[in-house]
């Protein structure tokens, strides 16, 4: 049971602005176009110590909303967050000079933060025979866990609450969920919510996946990320950000905002089973709880944006969970954004939802690329393979995001109608 009366329009939370940085697009329309045309954003990427790896690398203009000095002082995830937040606010049409910024909150999901900056500093002192007196005074403000959200508040002069939500790879959804909750609680009037990741800028995440036997390799970078494919061989790590402006419905209607969709359901739960391995039972329960809260059944869902990362067990577990919730038929359409951009970690859930929002307008489920031969152990008939599928009308999108330590998050967005 929700403590909120969801028939009260003030508890209806809508998406009114979108800003994103993806490896294959610097705004929603470019990102959507690339997803519909099968265009990957994965490329070769140089790391310290490990040499070249494959990664999803963003190419947004970092200096559009930041001075060079601000970018230098801050972090990559701060720069990503600032870019996405400015874009989202610009897109929302909110009169930023007139808004009460005490009533704006910033809630950003992160998988991890501080590894990049710490590795850089350790490298730096290694050049000075490990003399810790050359350890930067910028280390602490760069590595505090709220860093990317805090940088957004500095850049946009937001004086309401800000925090990051550490939720492994379930974080993008968790950022949206926290935004919804803070709006329903009346703590803020505008939520800047989503997820960000700078993870590719340290070798550690790649090396750890490699040691785990879960880092993708392929001669052609664009074919490396292969969720559900029999020849998948692991994760492609990506950087990125996906941030939305969230508002209560009456506020959005009053200012005549463009409404991308309404967040009608969400859920988070925990496997309590393993540090790394996912658990289809809890994943299914998480989806069912989100459906229940949205007041809909599985047959109402048009698109499932899957989490599958192209690891052996992860894809199998999610497939089992999806079969348990949605059955063995041809619907709903199941797609996968990671096949295009890799796994954007804290930003993954956010980007994967945002890349599907266009379906409310064009009726298309974007594809899962690089799926040449489906692993029979996944065996989902609903996967949109290779080319977009025209669904005619799309009313509900369900977005899965799961992470290490057994954290699951699901968000359901509905096409807006009053």
């Amino acid at each position, binding site marked *: 049971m929700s403590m909120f009366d969801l028939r009260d329009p003030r508890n209806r939370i809508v998406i009114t602005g979108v800003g994103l940085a993806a490896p294959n697009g610097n705004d929603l329309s470019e990102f959507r176009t690339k997803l519909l045309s099968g265009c990957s954003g994965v490329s070769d990427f140089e790391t310290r110590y490990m040499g070249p790896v494959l990664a999803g690398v963003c190419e947004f203009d970092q200096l559009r909303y930041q001075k060079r000095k601000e970018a230098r002082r801050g972090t990559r995830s701060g720069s990503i967050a600032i870019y996405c937040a400015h874009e989202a606010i610009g897109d929302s049409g909110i009169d930023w000079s007139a808004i009460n910024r005490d009533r704006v909150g910033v809630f950003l999901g992160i998988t991890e933060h501080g590894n990049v900056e710490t590795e850089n500093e350790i490298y730096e002192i290694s050049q000075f025979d490990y003399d810790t007196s050359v350890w930067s005074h*910028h280390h602490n403000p760069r590595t505090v866990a709220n860093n990317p959200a805090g940088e957004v508040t500095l850049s946009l002069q937001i004086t309401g609450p800000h925090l990051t939500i550490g939720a492994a790879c379930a974080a993008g959804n968790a950022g949206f969920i926290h935004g919804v909750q803070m709006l329903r609680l009346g703590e803020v009037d505008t939520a800047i919510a989503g997820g960000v990741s700078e993870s590719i800028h340290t070798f550690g995440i790649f090396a750890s996946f490699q040691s785990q036997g879960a880092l993708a390799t392929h001669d052609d970078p664009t074919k490396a990320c292969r969720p559900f494919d029999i020849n998948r061989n692991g994760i492609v790590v990506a950087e990125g950000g996906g941030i939305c402006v969230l508002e209560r419905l009456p506020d959005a209607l009053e200012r005549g905002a463009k409404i991308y969709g309404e967040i009608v359901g969400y859920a988070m739960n925990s496997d309590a089973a393993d540090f790394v391995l996912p658990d289809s039972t809890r994943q299914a329960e998480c989806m069912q709880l989100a459906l229940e809260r949205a007041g809909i059944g599985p047959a109402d869902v048009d698109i499932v944006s899957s989490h599958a990362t192209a690891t052996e067990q992860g894809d199998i577990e999610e497939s089992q969970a999806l079969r348990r919730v949605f059955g063995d038929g041809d619907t709903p359409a199941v797609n996968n954004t990671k096949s295009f951009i890799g796994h954007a970690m804290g930003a993954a859930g956010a980007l994967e939802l945002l890349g599907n929002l266009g379906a409310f307008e064009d009726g298309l489920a974007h594809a899962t690329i690089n799926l040449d031969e489906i692993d029979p152990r996944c065996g989902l008939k609903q996967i949109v393979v290779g080319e977009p599928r025209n669904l005619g009308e799309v009313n509900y999108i369900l977005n899965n995001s799961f992470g290490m330590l057994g954290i699951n998050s699901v968000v359901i967005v509905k096409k807006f109608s009053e």
Partner: protein
Amino acid sequence: MIAEDIRQVIIDILARIAPDEDLSDLQDDVAFREQMELDSMDFLDIVMELRKQYRVQIPEEEYEQLISMSSTVSYLMPRLKDVESPA
């Protein structure tokens, strides 16, 4: 290094830590902070860069010596006199 070399070292450091500033009209006898955006964290970057590049350890009570270009150069002259000029 002679005074001119030290001045250039400082200009190079400032260019890195304050990349948005135009340093071409920097006045040597006016405090840095009166003519450019330079807060305490930036100031610590100057101290850090000198430590990294020239092993100059500047005690906190002497930070005020670095208030302007001319005072910085005067302060550093005896400390960098044995350092070779950059090519």
